[in-house]
């Protein structure tokens, strides 16, 4: 299975059509989405959606009852079940009771979820998808690769081949012509269909209405022309009030396709007249299929807020490389990973959850305010809880946690690799480790770790304030010079720096791999070490470590129910600050003066994921660099992940590498000879990439650039 999974990634990465189409789309999407949301308070809007949907998730039974009562009062037949098999049987029975031979469908992910088409077809019924994208993949015998754009992975040439085969006539690949073919082919089917099957984007309990959002107009035909309409509705689509549809209809088109509103929105309430004067038979199926279990889970209840806009796919740096099919057959991308773990089973997400690099881009744009990366991490934790940590990984953690031993081993490996090392990099690693240096050189391990260098630093005497420095693995073992620079800067501001030897790994590697017990021990050890001496600040120059110290120690303890450890974790969190935010504050308070107004030349800045999206410190480093005299030129997609993701780049190097290549290209295109960032992990990734690329762009941590510009 793991082999198959890796193969599917490999296949996707080598599909130039796929990566080309998705790459282009994702670039345009960001711009268009921002334009569609102009003048709208996104935080307020998503707050309202989250509250409407969260209320519904806590009252599923009550709202289902209310919906049923109101829809039935208007002549609809409502069938409620938790079992996908019962849904299939019910629809088949309605079809057979009415002598249905032909069915037309508008797009419905819920019917994909229960694999309805093959079931009905096996019973001898002709089932036709009518959404253009769905029809294309039906002809191709494939499954949707994207919730909103099911056929985004296919080129117009491939579509033309599929249509040519269907019509038995050679067609050109002219897109308007292909669309016309689809209209002409599907129109007679609409007119002769005995039954229409739709999904629903929203189901309103107080009115018994279903709301359908489409662009092509096929849902209007599916719900108008056939005499029977069956709507399959997942119960997560319920809202209480009719007015609740307003915020959803405001966000869904903007987030899904960057439209202010789709061409058509249809609100169907009960039976409507057919063209022969009879009343339409309307069946609405409210399907549970593990949704109420999800709603009952205190952490995953949040995922019930999803409005299926797929914006988490559109901004995902991984999705745009591998597309949807790697994720499985139904729901894809970030939210798809979560839905698969519930609607299918936890086990089904075992491999796909590993695709998430935890950059947080999706969380930023989610109109339903779902912490998608957080929930994927929780899936990881539960998988590890069920299966345990693999033995090899366990032994790695025990080494990582022993700082002296860890440095010794890294250093030994680095020296053993000497024939391969040139200057500050290990360019090639032997055998199975070769992937790790594919497109990126790893840093050579420093002869003397920062913890030993620190003892040789002479700090001025009599400084009034104290900061504890938390170095993290990379600064301690690979980049001690960053630590030296930090001490120099803080000393200049009148702050003495202390380095408690008891500090250990921040636990991020363990946590991001679901090994929460290991992460909790790391947290406890660090809290003891870092709170041992009085200090105003605990400062780190690694955003991932900073986030661990001021957010994740707490959430790790909470997840494990270790509430007795929380007060000290909160005490540490309150003191913890990232380097650039602290320095900006010191400069603003007049305690630190940097050389100003120099001509330092062009620079570009890379936003590290944790710094921008968790610590929200994108402004501080930029203002510091500009005030010193750097001329800032922003790169395209400055806040898109560099592909490092901690151990991600070790586990999925084939995905990490192309993400890095894109980052390098964006940096180089600014023409700046220097790129700054605030994360030693990003420095390792990007500096290594530039080295293998042969580019002359210098890659620096902000701390070093600032240390070089302290006013006398």
């Amino acid at each position: 299975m793991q082999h198959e999974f890796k193969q599917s990634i490999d296949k996707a990465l080598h599909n130039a059509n796929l990566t080309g189409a998705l790459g282009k789309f994702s670039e345009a999407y960001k711009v268009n989405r921002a334009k569609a949301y102009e003048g709208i308070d996104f935080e307020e809007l998503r707050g309202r959606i989250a509250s409407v949907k969260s209320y519904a998730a806590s009252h599923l039974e009550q709202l289902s009852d209310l919906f049923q009562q109101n829809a039935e009062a208007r002549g609809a037949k409502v069938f409620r079940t938790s079992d996908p098999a019962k849904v299939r049987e019910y629809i088949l029975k309605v079809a057979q009771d009415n002598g249905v031979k032909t069915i037309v469908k508008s797009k419905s992910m819920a019917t994909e979820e229960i694999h309805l088409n093959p079931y009905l077809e096996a019973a001898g019924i002709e089932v036709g998808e009518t959404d253009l994208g769905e029809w294309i993949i039906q002809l191709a015998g494939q499954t949707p690769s994207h919730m909103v754009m099911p056929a985004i992975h296919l080129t117009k040439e491939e579509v033309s081949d599929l249509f040519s085969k269907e019509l038995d006539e050679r067609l050109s690949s002219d897109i308007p012509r292909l669309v016309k073919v689809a209209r002409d082919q599907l129109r007679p089917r609409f007119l002769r269909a005995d039954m229409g099957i739709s999904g629903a984007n929203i189901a309103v309990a107080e009115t018994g209405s279903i709301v359908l959002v489409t662009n092509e107009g096929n849902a209007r035909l599916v719900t108008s022309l056939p005499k029977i309409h069956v709507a399959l509705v997942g119960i997560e689509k319920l809202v209480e009030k009719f007015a609740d549809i307003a915020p959803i209809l405001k966000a869904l088109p903007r987030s899904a396709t960057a439209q202010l509103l789709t061409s058509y929105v249809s609100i169907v309430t009960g039976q409507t007249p057919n063209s022969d004067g009879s009343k339409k038979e309307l069946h609405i199926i409210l399907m549970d299929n593990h949704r109420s279990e999800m709603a009952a889970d205190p952490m995953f209840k949040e995922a019930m807020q999803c409005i299926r806009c797929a914006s988490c796919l559109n901004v995902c740096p991984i999705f745009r490389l591998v597309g949807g099919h790697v994720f499985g057959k139904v729901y894809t991308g970030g939210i798809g990973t979560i839905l698969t773990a519930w609607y299918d089973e936890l086990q089904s997400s075992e491999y796909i959850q590993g695709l998430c690099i935890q950059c947080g881009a999706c969380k930023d744009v989610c109109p339903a305010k779902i912490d998608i990366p957080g929930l994927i991490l929780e899936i990881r934790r539960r998988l590890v809880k069920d299966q345990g940590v693999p033995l090899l990984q366990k032994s790695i953690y025990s080494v990582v946690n022993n700082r002296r031993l860890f440095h010794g081993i890294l250093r030994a490996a680095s020296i053993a690799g000497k024939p391969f090392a040139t200057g500050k990099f290990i360019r090639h690693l032997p055998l199975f480790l070769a992937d790790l240096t594919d497109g990126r050189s790893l840093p050579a391990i420093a002869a003397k770790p920062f913890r030993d260098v620190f003892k040789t630093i002479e700090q001025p005497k009599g400084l009034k304030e104290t900061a504890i420095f938390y170095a993290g693995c990379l600064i301690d073992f690979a980049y001690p010079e960053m630590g030296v620079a930090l001490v120099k800067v803080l000393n200049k501001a009148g702050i003495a720096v202390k380095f408690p030897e008891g500090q250990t790994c921040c636990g991020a590697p363990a946590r991001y791999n679901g090994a929460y017990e290991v992460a909790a021990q790391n947290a406890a050890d660090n809290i003891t070490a870092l709170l041992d001496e009085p200090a105003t600040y605990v400062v780190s120059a690694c955003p991932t470590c900073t986030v661990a110290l001021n957010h994740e120690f707490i959430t790790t303890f909470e997840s494990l129910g270790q509430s007795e450890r929380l007060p000290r974790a909160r005490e540490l969190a309150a003191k913890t600050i990232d380097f650039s935010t602290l320095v900006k504050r010191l400069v603003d308070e007049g305690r630190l003066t940097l050389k100003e107004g120099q001509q330092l030349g062009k620079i570009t800045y890379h936003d590290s994921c944790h710094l921008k999206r968790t610590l929200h410190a994108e402004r501080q480093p930029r203002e510091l660099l500009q005030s010193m005299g750097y001329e800032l030129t922003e790169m395209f997609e400055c806040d898109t992940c560099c592909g490092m993701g901690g151990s991600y780049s070790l586990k999925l190097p084939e995905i990490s590498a192309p993400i890095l290549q894109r980052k390098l290209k964006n940096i180089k295109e600014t023409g700046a000879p220097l790129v700054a960032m605030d994360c030693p992990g990003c420095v390792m990734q990007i500096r290594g990439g530039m080295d293998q690329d042969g580019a002359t762009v210098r890659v620096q941590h902000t701390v070093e650039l600032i240390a070089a510009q302290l006013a006398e």
Partner: protein
Amino acid sequence: MYEQFKTRAEGVSAEVHRFPTQAAALDFIIGFLRDEGVANAPDRRAVWAGCPFLAGIDRQQLAGIDGLHLEVSRERAAEARVGISQMDWALADTGTLAQDATAIDKRLVSTLPFIHIALVATAALVPDMPTWLTKVQPKDSGYISLITGPSRTADIERVLTIGVHGPSRLIILFVDALGGTN
């Protein structure tokens, strides 16, 4: 609100016109049907769903248009080049038309033909969706339609293409002096 509506609707490829009276709008429609070559032949017909606008004009003027049907059937709508109906509201901030489309003929004429001409009273403009939602009641309307521009898709290579299953042209005619209930 009209100007905002027009900008938004044109932004999604709708055509927007405004007339002071029903007579002026009717002149436009008659000229349009003639220019489009509407005739009593498959794919050349026009269908017009019953509405207050129709009640307020001299229908004699329509008698001479061969191929225009005021009795809408599914077959005629499927063969029509032009469909005409009256909408109940216009939402300015998205350029959206809204209609109680419970009567099937209203949906047939706005869905099946290549061109949809939508009549709407200028007084039916509302600023946005939340305002509109206070004016409609699903319990009174079994099928409510919102229409924003013509039918569209971007399902092949993300290239925007107008006119898939619904009309490829949406022509919106605001009429200042237009009353009655649709």
